[in-house]
């Protein structure tokens, strides 16, 4: 009996006030982020790699789940916007003392932070925090459980657009552990929203959620047919704990069946690009010769990641009320 629910990411003018998920955002909003990010790319190449946009603002990185890598990219982005940055690893401290997420958040609100960058192991944590803080503080989801990692999804489509500007004429394959991947969900929504006509997922059945096709993707279980004629290959990271267990028998068998090698890459279009959100498991989901090869755009992804995060932060900071 569906209640009408307002999109919690938008303010009453329909402007982006939190970034929680790609899902539910319109193509114009995504394009604005990508175009703003393009303006920020040049900033990193200047003498002074900083703009004064967020001077006097405080960005608080709240990581309930540790990730030095992601936290660092957000930190660089915030600092290049001249914001002050506070890093908080909550993973080990307050949570174990029985403090709830919202207790932690309330403490930070009291410190007058303007923006929260949140990572949490549970799907929906960023939504919970955004609902709690209202529109005074902007919340950026830096990964919640298996749900979403919207800035990663954005930087991936930024990279795709850079190399393949005609999004309406692309075939993209997302390969690997879609079931547990917040990156995959954000990539899929970003690609379909921007008009990519064919998004494929390639994985064994154990690594795909039930009814994954409802996300608007075509499902393949083998690389030979799944990679045929694709323009973009987005590899997913396989978490160590999933390599030998109930979902997969071994890393070796996974590499043999779903690892991206030069041979398998040859099935895609000759000018196909290869992406990976990092950190890579070389020899598990991707072969080193591919990761370091001519078609790999994995390092540019990292560079663009900072520009995309700067764009998101500056757009959110400007959309009050």
């Amino acid at each position, binding site marked *: 009996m569906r209640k009408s629910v307002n999109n919690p990411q938008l303010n009453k003018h329909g402007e982006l006030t939190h970034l929680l998920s790609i899902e539910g955002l319109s193509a114009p909003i995504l394009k604005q982020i990508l175009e703003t990010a393009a303006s920020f790319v040049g900033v990193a190449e200047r003498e002074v790699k900083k703009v004064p946009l967020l001077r006097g603002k405080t960005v608080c990185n709240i990581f309930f789940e540790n990730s030095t890598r992601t936290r660092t990219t957000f930190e660089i982005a915030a600092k290049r916007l001249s914001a002050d940055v506070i890093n908080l690893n909550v993973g080990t401290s307050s949570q174990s003392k029985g403090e709830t997420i919202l207790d932690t958040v309330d403490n930070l609100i009291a410190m007058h932070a303007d923006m929260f960058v949140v990572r949490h192991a*549970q799907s929906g944590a960023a939504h919970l925090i955004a609902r709690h803080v209202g529109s005074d503080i902007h919340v950026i989801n830096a990964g919640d459980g298996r749900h979403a990692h919207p800035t990663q999804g954005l930087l991936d489509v930024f990279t795709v657009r850079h190399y393949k500007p005609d999004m309406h004429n692309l075939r993209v394959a997302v390969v690997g552990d879609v079931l547990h991947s917040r990156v995959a969900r954000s990539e899929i929504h970003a690609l379909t929203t921007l008009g990519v006509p064919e998004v494929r997922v390639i994985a064994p059945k154990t690594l795909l*959620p039930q009814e994954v096709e409802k996300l608007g993707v075509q499902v393949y279980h083998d690389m030979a047919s799944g990679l045929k004629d694709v323009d973009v290959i987005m590899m997913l990271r396989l978490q160590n704990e999933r390599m030998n267990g109930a979902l997969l028998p071994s890393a070796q068998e996974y590499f043999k069946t779903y690892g991206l090698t030069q041979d398998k890459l040859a099935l895609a279009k000759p000018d196909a690009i290869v992406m990976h959100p990092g950190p890579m498991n070389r020899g598990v989901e991707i072969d080193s010769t591919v990761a370091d090869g001519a078609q790999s755009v994995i390092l540019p992804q990292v560079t663009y990641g900072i520009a995309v995060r700067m764009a998101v932060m500056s757009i959110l900071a400007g959309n009050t009320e």
Partner: protein
Amino acid sequence: MKIHIKNGRLIDPKNNIDAKHDVFIAAGKIVGLGNAPDGFVANQIIDASNLVVCPGLIDLSARLREPGFEYKATLESELLAAAAGGVTSLACPPDTDPVLDEPGLVEMLKHRAKLLNLVNIYPLGALTRQLQGKNLTEMFELSEAGCVGFSQADNALTDTQVLWNSLQYAATFDLTVWLRAEDAHLAKNGVAHSGEVAARLGLQGIPACAETIALSTILSLMRETGAKVHICRLSTLQSVAMIKQAKKEGLPISCDIASTHLHLTEHDIGYFDAQCHLRPPLRTERDRDALRAGLLDGTIDAICSDHTPVDDDAKLSPFAESEPGASGLELLLSLTLKWALDNKLALPQALTSITSSPASVLGIDGGSLSLGAQADVCVFDADFVWKVEAKTLLSQGKNTPFMGLELPGKVRWTLLNGQIVYQHH
């Protein structure tokens, strides 16, 4: 105390009555329908003009949270909520702290409820000690103490041999076993239906087959043991078909669904609305429609509130970490009426699912307004539309997916044993 309920529309599904009949009550019993008995002089007259007079509702599952979880709710708050919801009899599951696995605890609970004198309560005893699924409880003694059935609540019985034995033992004394059909392994860590929404939101799913596999096990064991079983909170299309077949086969089986599942689907989770974190999970529209159809053709016996009050903090967590359950006693009538409106059902047919039909599941006399029956009565305004708000709910649990929505049907009077226990002002 003699009460005259006049000018109401009397609906008594069990006796096939839907007519303008006055009701006369004396000494806790129905003493007259239509015409006053000779010499009847009422102490109190209830004017039920434009209102429906029906048997007090019977709820097959309401957690009262005592003993052990008084921070979530108390017997007093929840029994008041029941009375406000027109509920006059309810069954409560054994997952309290301590678990209802000893006769003394059951007697204490019944005694406390008796003192409050708001609702008849019918405790379900624990099927296994501590609900741990290992050792049987003293089912015979517990039944003597007042347990109407034996249940594992939401704690799955993973050891099939223990399940077999407990059904054998219950069958020995002709006791009914109440089970939720859910395979514990398939449901492990699950918080939402395995489907589109779980895929989208990245939530751990509970597949429909978690229910059908467990149900199939239960049905096989019923055939072996002859035990009577009530299946609690059916949620899938396939299991409705299985129950239908089992009933056709003649197995002594009954089942219920939660009022939430009569209306909501996985899509109502929206953006991680923890109020829609329920057990079993909300499933698809096809499942929801199959539940509605199952009620209509008699496959499903009753709608229950599955009342599960939780404290406010328990829902203020990420979806998977939030506590499942919804407060429901005060919504049972309204959600049943809403279903009747949605499906254009006659009121008597809809009311069967919350009066006479659950009464026969419990094996009690209630659920009708026959002459001589105990005067448990609900008088309600079917056309009144009200908004669900925290401040209007008497239950301590303000947790419901329907918060803020408008629903039809408001209870005006509730009578228990011929006494007014609730009156809406």
